[in-house]
């Protein structure tokens, strides 16, 4: 059998989006060109946990985003949206409030009309809030039975502190404290056109753009709204580095090791992404090869960098049998040390780099991938040409600089260790 030669991936380029302004000056970015006649439209507001007046208000607003207006009950509103086969969905992030519409082009107009209703007319009826609170508390109890959930909550609290928007925990008290007035205040203050950017992907032409302008372009800014986007929070890190949560009758434990980290603005970002890939970022990584493929201690182990607008998190996560817990932890730290003490062989770097370049290529593939990447850069205040810079950096990072990064960022004594189980 002749083993085929591997070719380098040609230049990776990220297409520029179409950029227009709606009548009321809302910026719109679009990626066009799917086969099917479908549109995904996203509105992103500078908002989220960062600007909410009390805990869980952003999230609760998103969950009650279709809870009814003065004229329409929740059921009537949802039935209308469903009748076109469309989906309108709101989610609250740490620094954003996101509203998405998925629909077939032939139902774009009525779907936009309903979207506009959701953006401007929701009253957050008391009985809808009460039911949400009751069911959220019940679902929280189910989550609290899961080790990975418990570990994740404890980890964020440890790294950012209980009062920080990136760190606070969902608990019964916070759920009970949500009021209709808080939701209405947040909705009115944050969901305003001057705080909004629109993104579209799918197949669209002038007709679709005109419809979007018709419904979102005549949306007027409410006067006298104060923007709270400039809130400042101080991360209150825990003094204690090791957190152990014991859960009876567990057969496995969830482990998270990590710390607060930088985001995409940092000069080491792209080269660290390569280092992380080698360490625990893909199936061929050192953590996976050693702890899963060599020792069979876990079903999966991953490390990753998640970047946020004002910060970032680096973490390693896995689940393992309780009796193997110590071996597993020891091996994770050992792999960190190896990266600091030994140069990574060229072959291993090439492998990880090529894999990563394949991933970057994938992010340029088609309007739906493009819009995802574009939005993620946008919310961190980065222009999309950074994408190609990152690709270049990844191509050029060598063994010596990877070792330097490991020495700088992967010191055991800087890490928090959370074990739940």
């Amino acid at each position, binding site marked *: 059998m002749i083993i*085929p030669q*591997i070719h380098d991936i040609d230049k990776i380029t990220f297409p520029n989006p179409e950029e227009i302004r709606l009548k009321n000056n809302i910026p719109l970015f679009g990626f066009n060109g799917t086969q099917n006649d*479908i549109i995904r439209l996203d509105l992103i507001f500078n908002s989220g946990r960062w600007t909410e007046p009390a805990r869980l208000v952003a999230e609760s607003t998103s969950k009650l985003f279709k809870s009814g207006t003065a004229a329409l009950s929740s059921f009537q509103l*949802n039935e209308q949206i469903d009748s076109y086969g*469309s989906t309108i969905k709101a989610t609250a992030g740490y620094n954003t409030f996101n509203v998405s519409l998925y629909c077939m082009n032939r139902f774009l107009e009525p779907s936009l009309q309903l979207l506009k209703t959701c953006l401007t007319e929701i009253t957050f009826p008391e009985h809808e809030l009460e039911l949400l609170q009751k*069911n959220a508390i019940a*679902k929280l109890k189910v989550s609290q039975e899961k080790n990975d959930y418990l570990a994740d909550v404890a980890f964020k609290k440890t790294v950012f502190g209980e009062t920080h928007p990136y760190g606070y925990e969902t608990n019964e008290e916070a759920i009970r404290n949500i009021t209709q007035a808080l939701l209405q205040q947040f909705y009115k203050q944050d969901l305003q056109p001057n705080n909004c950017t629109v993104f579209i992907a799918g197949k669209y032409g002038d007709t679709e753009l005109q419809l979007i302008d018709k419904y979102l372009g005549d949306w007027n800014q409410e006067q006298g709204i104060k923007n709270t986007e400039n809130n400042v929070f101080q991360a209150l890190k825990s003094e204690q580095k090791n957190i152990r949560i014991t859960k009876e009758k567990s057969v496995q434990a969830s482990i998270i090791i990590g710390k607060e980290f930088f985001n995409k603005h940092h000069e080491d970002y792209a080269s660290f992404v390569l280092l992380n890939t080698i360490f625990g970022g893909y199936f061929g990584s050192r953590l996976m090869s050693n702890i899963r493929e060599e020792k069979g201690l876990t079903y999966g182990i991953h490390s990753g960098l998640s970047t946020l607008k004002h910060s970032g998190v680096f973490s390693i996560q896995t689940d393992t049998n309780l009796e193997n817990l110590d071996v597993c932890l020891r091996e994770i730290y050992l792999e960190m040390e190896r990266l600091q003490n030994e140069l990574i062989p060229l072959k291993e770097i090439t492998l990880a780099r*090529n894999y990563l370049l*394949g991933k970057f290529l*994938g992010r340029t593939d088609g309007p739906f991938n493009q819009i995802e990447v574009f939005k993620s850069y946008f919310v961190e205040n980065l222009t999309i040409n950074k994408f190609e810079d990152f690709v270049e950096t990844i191509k050029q990072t060598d063994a010596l600089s990877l070792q330097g990064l490991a020495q700088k960022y992967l010191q055991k004594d800087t890490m928090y260790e959370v074990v739940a189980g």
Partner: protein
Amino acid sequence: MIDYSREVLDNGLTLIHHHDKTTPFVIVNTLYKVGAKHEDEHRTGFAHLFEHLMFSGSKHFADFDKPLQEAGGENNAFTNNDYTNYYDMVPAVNIETPMCLEADRMVNLNINKKSLDVQRKVVCEEFKENYINQPYGNVWHILREMVYEKHPYRWPTIGKELKHVEDATLEDVKAFYSKYYQPSNAILVLAGNIEKEQASTLAKTYFGELTGSVVEKRIFEEPEQTMAKEKTVYEDVPLNAIYIAFKICDRLHPDYYASDVTSDILSNGTSSRLHQKLVKEEKAFVEIDAYITSSDDIGMFVVEGKITDGIELQKATDLIWAELKKMQEEKVNESELQKCKNKMLTYMNFSEASLLNRAISLAYYELLGNANLINEEEQQYDAVNAEHIQQFAQKTFTKERSNTLFYLKKESK
């Protein structure tokens, strides 16, 4: 409309090609017609364990993943009760790398003790992580055994019990490989930025010379259910839950589409019946869902819900039955039906935007015997009318055909 072409090589391997020149990628998707239903009752979990072993390297490659990753590619696999599916996605310039790798592991897999030992442990950790150490994690173990009397759908893909996986021997594994991993038992889909001629030539170059035996197609039987079944278990869970399951038709039966639309009428979207009535109005359930299992043979229609604290089990059960009865007694009105069809159509359109989804769907429909279902299903769903749904409900939702599992918290004992 998704264009594709189909060709069967001399050794029985089916090739399906689908061209999409807008993507820089090609997908090599290999489906083997073997799943958990082909396992021996006393040695379950095998098809899935074997999927793990397929990454252990083959005659010409010490490792499967590395050459593929070096080619800028990504890969994964999944196993279900009916089949096992492997996919590789690479930049188009490197199409030959996965072709070579897949062909080699189709007949020259390196099955050895070391990899079996490790993967047995990995699968046991997977078993614990997803089925033991999770609230409600063992529901499917219980429910499948309740619903099916004979059919090997009685056990889930992960295996009936940990011990079956722990006891797997090298001989068992080798026998499984030589029985089921044959060119004639596989469907190869090449999709993406590759021309038809090139796809055909490459398939012949890499797979054409592989020889193998023919795998006999097995027919599985399952008797009609004539008596209601009920079971109660007590576990460490925070909320009482109820599962009501009915056996339904197989995937190719004309009723299949009516069954799917029925489940959507009951629970797809916030305005669906179960959600509106039982969660919002009655406040009897924290969450509720109705769905079908979409298996090749006799499938399942399942209604499952987590019950609000303080609501009696009997009341919760009655409320579900009242909605099922309503489906039998009254015809669904046109607008409600159209709503579900529109949702289905939107979902299908968005799903088709992904090349990987198209590739996997083509392989799956070919397994069902008609790759063109990828283009026909839209009409099949559109043809479902209120009579079909009512007939389906009348035939299916009867007490004698029901299987009810009460999954309760320990304190309520």
